[in-house]
């Protein structure tokens, strides 16, 4: 039976197993919205801005491992989605974003709501397609899901002119989505894996540096087994938090610009570094000339282009993190050897000395003003480390990363690569939809939250009981921190005057709001909010304006050149 393009679109989503479609209607996608109206299998979530749709789909994807799916109209619908697409691209998140397009015969005429969505999104997608014939629609959609979810995942855009959604053809769900030009490697080279095992066995000061690729590759249990077999310290990147349990004694905390003293020092002093699913980002490495000066480096990554991009490595294994680590463990156990135990003991002794610096100390005893770290520590304690935590971007993001100890993957949802303010709330929508029974906390600040605040309306429409933890210091905190350190405290445009009353704002959207400005009220307020299982609570914590994120490695410094809270001087 012949179906219209719009009907085929919906059938394809159903056949791909799509649960939620995040979107916003408009002229170019009205045929599709009409087809959506006539069915109930694919649930459409109406956001209030297309950026929110992409972030919500992204949160859904990060927390489930399934692709997030978005539908927006042409022109401004597409351009509004770009920030969310770029966010997903930088963090390798599988999204399939459908953009409406003007009728085929109008393309190139500067028609109403026409933009070159393919051209605009090209630099921030894994791939994009334009559908030029309704007979290609099903196979292109199939390929889009295939490309988005395999290899190194990423967003894929499919641009669909309006007339295509009205044309008719027979629908058959294509079985084979493969592309001759796209064959991601999964199995690692056995010779390279053997060499990696050999090198690891010679290590006296081994270090494991695991990133978001471990989470994307569902390789946490393999990582855990590997780290424990080696008895080596393990650090996670910002994107990798939860890949290795934060409460495990072998975990030394996050590394990088705001990483722990022990993690960064261990990076600096290690003799063999195993990097898994991490890309040696500048926020992680600091000055490349000072990066891991003593280490021989092994790098496991599914993306060949990540290898040797920023840092020269001795052994590279290209492949799926789970499969490669499994093979690596087999090679290690088959060797019949173990790491040098006395050397390892001495290494841990050194690490414990670094731990003794207690780099995350802050003024806990303060009874006058709320320390943001205290809010997050209390949140961690009350949720027993079991909540999904989304975050926006800035100081609160770093504190959440430092103080909420993630023991499981896919619980920490943040924009690491692009650093997109406004990500947290819409991402929480996607997470809460996917996990209706779980606690979802959005840790944010008064600057970030206002970038997608309109999504409070979406939360109301779908009864999403998200807990918003607004750390309100009346500053763009991270900007203020840099201005204090590097611009002699000239706080240029980083102070937020004329803030809304967030409690009333939340209430006007139909939610509950609560302002907290004393440390001794923090716990009760969090308990109250977490206890409200059926509604969104906006907690507005009035926090210390002067608090900075420590430790800190200034841009361009080495891992050993950290500044702790105790020495406030920065370069």
């Amino acid at each position, binding site marked *: 039976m012949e179906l219209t393009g719009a009907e085929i679109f919906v059938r394809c989503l159903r056949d791909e197993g799509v649960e939620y479609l995040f979107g916003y209607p408009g002229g170019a996608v009205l045929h599709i919205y009409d087809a959506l109206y006539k069915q109930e299998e694919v649930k459409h979530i109406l956001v209030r801005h297309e950026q929110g749709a992409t972030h919500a789909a992204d949160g859904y994807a990060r927390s489930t491992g399934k692709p997030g799916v978005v539908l927006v109209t042409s022109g401004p619908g597409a351009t509004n989605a770009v920030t969310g697409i770029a966010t997903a691209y930088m963090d390798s998140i599988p999204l399939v974003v459908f953009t409406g397009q003007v009728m085929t015969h109008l393309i190139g005429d500067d028609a109403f709501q026409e933009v070159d969505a*393919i*051209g605009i999104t*090209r*630099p921030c997608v*894994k*791939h*994009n397609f*334009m559908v030029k014939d309704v007979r290609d629609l099903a196979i292109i959609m199939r390929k889009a899901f295939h*490309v988005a979810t395999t290899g190194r995942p990423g967003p894929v855009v499919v641009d669909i002119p309006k007339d295509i959604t009205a044309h008719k053809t027979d629908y058959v769900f294509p079985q084979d989505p493969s*592309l*001759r*030009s*796209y064959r991601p490697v999964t199995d690692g080279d056995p010779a390279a894996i053997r060499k990696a095992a050999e090198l690891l066995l010679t290590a006296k000061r081994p270090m494991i540096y695991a990133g978001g690729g471990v989470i994307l590759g569902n390789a946490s249990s393999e990582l855990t087994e590997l780290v424990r077999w080696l008895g080596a310290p393990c650090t996670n990147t910002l994107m990798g938090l939860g890949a290795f349990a934060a409460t495990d004694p072998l975990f030394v905390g996050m590394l990088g610009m705001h990483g722990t003293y022990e993690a960064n020092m261990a990076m600096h002093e290690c003799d063999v570094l195993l990097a898994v699913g991490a890309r040696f980002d500048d926020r992680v490495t600091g000055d490349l000339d000072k990066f891991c000066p003593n280490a021989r480096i092994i790098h496991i990554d599914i*993306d*060949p*282009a990540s*290898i*040797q*991009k920023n840092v020269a490595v001795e052994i590279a294994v290209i492949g799926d993190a789970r499969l490669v680590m499994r093979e690596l463990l087999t090679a290690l156990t088959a060797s019949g050897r173990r790491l040098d135990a006395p050397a390892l003991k001495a290494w841990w002794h050194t690490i414990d000395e670094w731990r003794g610096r207690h780099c995350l100390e802050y003024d806990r005893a303060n009874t006058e003003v709320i320390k943001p770290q205290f809010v997050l520590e209390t949140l961690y304690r009350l949720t027993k480390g079991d909540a999904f935590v989304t975050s926006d971007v800035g100081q609160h993001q770093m504190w959440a990363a430092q103080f909420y100890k993630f023991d499981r993957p896919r619980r920490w949802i943040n924009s690491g690569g692009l650093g997109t303010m406004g990500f947290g709330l819409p991402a929480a929508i996607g997470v809460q939809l996917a996990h209706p029974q779980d606690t979802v906390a959005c840790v944010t600040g008064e600057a970030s939250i206002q970038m997608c605040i309109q999504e409070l309306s979406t939360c109301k429409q779908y009864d999403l009981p998200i807990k918003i933890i607004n750390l309100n210091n009346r500053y763009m905190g991270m900007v203020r921190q840099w201005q204090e350190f590097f611009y002699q405290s000239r706080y240029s445009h980083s102070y937020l005057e004329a803030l809304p009353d967030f409690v009333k704002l939340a209430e006007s959207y139909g939610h509950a709001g609560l302002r907290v400005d004393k440390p001794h009220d923090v716990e009760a307020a969090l308990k109250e909010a977490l206890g409200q299982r059926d509604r969104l609570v906006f907690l507005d914590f009035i926090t210390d304006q002067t608090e900075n994120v420590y430790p800190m490695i200034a841009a361009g410094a080495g891992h050993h050149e950290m500044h702790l809270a105790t020495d406030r001087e920065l370069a």
Partner: protein
Amino acid sequence: MRHIISILLENEAGALSRVAGLFSARGYNIASLTVAPTEDPSLSRMTLVTSGSEDVVDQIRKQLNKLVDVVKLVDLTENKRIEREMLLIKVCAEGGERDEIKRLSDIFRGRIIDVTERAYTIELTGDGSKLDAFISVIHPRRILEVVRSGVIGIARGNASCVPDDRSSCLNSNDPSV
């Protein structure tokens, strides 16, 4: 160092801009770029000349391979190769100069393909340095226009840059191929 990279890519709208966009977004150099369909109309052949340190060229190859439209890529610089570029040059040729230009063209194995009373248009193929040499022996004031095709190249010997699944007489036992 200079590298000549031969790329087979899907003959689809936008494929060229993916390659060009990659080079501009990541700040890589393009010295020349030629592209045309192959005997298989679904594939285009692109020959790209770039330069950079070995690390940079290594990244260029990897990033190109990562593009979903790229079917196959070979760095011709790694092996023996043949390089060709075509030059079309229009030069002033008047009076006694006409013989001299003709002689120069013959020496370089060029062909005069268009003639007017005042000008010759000469076609010349060779590697880039041969074309440079020819241009350098013509007085700059006589040169009316220079059009160069950009470099194309192919590996010497039996090696070829074709899709992995393509059979040929060299890798098939079928005597009829």
